[in-house]
């Protein structure tokens, strides 16, 4: 059974309560179609277990097959520096089919973030190290593709439909209640 080797830390982006009974950690790639498809079921899981679950998203860009995935991840991190990680995360997935450097600038502007600051952050690779650290932590934890989910540190080996995710989350809820 694969386990999460890098515990949730302050450097992570958490949606929901960070003291929740269950932490769902997702490793994803902004250019992976399965990750985009997992967006809705993940949101439904957060609603269903509202207040008792937190979501962490970590980057796992396969840049050789997804050339925009690295820049997109760094752009989300850039937005995270201004408290808008999840807005950018959602905007990138919503526009997945037309990702480009200029689209990332447009998305940043729409979130009232400075295009110039984004350009500088991307050009200097300001957030590249964080993205790479996420990726390597995922590799060491047994992430073998995207999306990969960990529920309270244990890899969820099923699909990402609501019933499949709910099964793992429900079991983790029960385990923490006893």
């Amino acid at each position, binding site marked *: 059974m694969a386990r999460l080797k890098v515990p949730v830390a302050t450097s992570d982006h958490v949606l929901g309560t960070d003291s929740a009974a269950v932490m769902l950690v997702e490793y994803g790639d902004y250019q992976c179609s399965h990750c985009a498809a997992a967006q809705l079921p993940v949101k439904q899981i957060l609603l269903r277990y509202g207040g008792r679950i937190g979501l962490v998203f970590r980057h796992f860009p396969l840049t050789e*097959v997804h050339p925009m995935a690295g820049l997109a991840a760094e752009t989300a991190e850039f937005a995270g520096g201004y408290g808008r990680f999840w807005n950018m995360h959602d905007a990138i997935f919503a526009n997945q089919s037309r990702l480009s450097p200029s689209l990332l600038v447009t998305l940043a502007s729409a979130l009232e973030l400075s295009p110039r600051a984004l350009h500088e952050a991307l050009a200097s690779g300001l957030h590249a190290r964080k993205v790479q650290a996420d990726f390597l932590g995922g590799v060491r934890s047994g992430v073998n593709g995207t999306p990969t989910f960990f529920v309270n540190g244990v890899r969820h080996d099923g699909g990402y439909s609501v019933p499949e995710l709910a099964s793992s989350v429900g079991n983790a809820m029960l385990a923490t209640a006893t």
Partner: protein
Amino acid sequence: MSTILRAGTRAPGFKLHVTPDQVLLLDEIQGKRIVLAFYPADWSPVCGDQMALYNQVLPEFRSRGAGIFGISVDGAWCHQAFAQARHLHFPLLADFEPKGEVARAYGAYRESEGVCERALFVIDEKRAITWSYCSPIAVNPGADGILDALDAMPKTGE
């Protein structure tokens, strides 16, 4: 599932096409750590499949003094097209003729389907297998086991 060669066994030699006009002998790469990744077939439909992952983890293998080779029963031309399409930066070996002969030597051939197992081998400088793992055929084994095995080996040069 086949019974694959285990740690401590000498890695069987091979002479396989690595491109349509290049042949690679295991003996030629002695003195270097090698990861052999047997897999069933090129053109896996899964997003972020095994070879794409190893492609991305390549610097980690290299920084540990190891080279990785993918190996399947697909022919050299098929490998070439697959590697180009997926931008693979490591070689794919064609265990094509006699079909699956090397996979058989490593205990990693599936007679029923006529393809390689999804089996991993880490081979040291002296051609001894130091770690091996056979994954269920439908499960991508990831790279964590390989990196753990490389990290458990003495530092290169010692």
